[in-house]
């Protein structure tokens, strides 16, 4: 993946997580730690984009990070959490990320229609399983690693793999 797209994704996701969830993310190269590949993943949130082609963005959350951003987003105590609140928050996270990305890449044009976010619980899936895909980007947070995977996003936005 080209460096510019990677940096753009990081800046976009970083802004969403900082502004809405008060959570700071680091790129792996800016952080001394390596992902713990055995760490189980808790939920995935994905959203589709229809532009020149169909694309999608998917986030994978460890449980601690999912709970942390939900508590911060809603301004509630941890004991007030339930699964619905977590699912809604993770859906908003992926929704806002793709919307922001769309605005940053091509704010003057309609370059895509964003779908409705979907959130699913994960069982038996670890960080290492998802990182087996070399296109996955990992972002470090103090509550675990956020993993991001996307399909056909470059084609949707008309980005070239070799600019």
């Amino acid at each position, binding site marked *: 993946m080209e460096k510019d797209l990677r940096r753009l994704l990081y800046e976009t996701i970083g802004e969403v997580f900082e502004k809405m969830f008060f959570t700071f993310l680091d790129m792996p190269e800016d952080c001394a730690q390596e992902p713990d590949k055995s760490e189980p993943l808790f939920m995935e949130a994905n959203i589709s984009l229809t532009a020149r082609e169909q694309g999608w963005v998917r986030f994978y959350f460890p449980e601690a990070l999912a709970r942390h951003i939900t508590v911060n987003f809603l301004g509630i105590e941890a004991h007030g959490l339930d699964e619905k609140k977590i699912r*809604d928050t993770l859906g908003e996270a992926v929704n806002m990320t793709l919307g*922001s990305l769309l605005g940053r890449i091509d704010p003057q044009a309609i370059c895509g229609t964003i779908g*409705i976010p979907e959130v699913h619980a994960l069982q038996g899936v670890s960080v290492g399983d998802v990182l087996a895909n070399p296109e996955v980007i990992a972002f470090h947070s103090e509550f675990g690693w956020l993993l991001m995977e996307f399909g056909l996003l470059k084609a949707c936005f008309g980005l070239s793999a070799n600019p």
Partner: protein
Amino acid sequence: MAFNIMVVDDSETMRAVVKKVVGMSGVAVGEFHEAENGKKALEVLDSSWVDVILSDINMPEMGGIELIRAIKGNEVLRHIPVIFITTEASQVRIDEATNLGAAGYIQKPFVPETIKTVLLDVLEKAYAQRFKEEKPVLAEEGDAELDF
């Protein structure tokens, strides 16, 4: 007299967040209505008086653009200001909403101050006299910095 506010968003969590921010904004809120899409919002408008609508665009069944079209095409409802709070960031989409009569446009991710500023601005323009009467409440509570 306070303002009746409706938040339209398919995410219950986002409705709760917006409700919280509005509550902290210093605006005197009377009734607070919620709807999960444009269709449900129109049902609320059938039976309740609403002064301002804060709506998402991208929702199942009936989105925000269809909702504002329906509102602006209705003689009784067309005066109600609609503020969009949405991830939709393209200029074309913003222009489309403005041309359809949107009173404000807030892009997610937002900081609470943005909602406060836009909401106060829209209410002041739409209800100048009533807003003036509410001013003491706003001056008293609205000065506080939003702690979100």
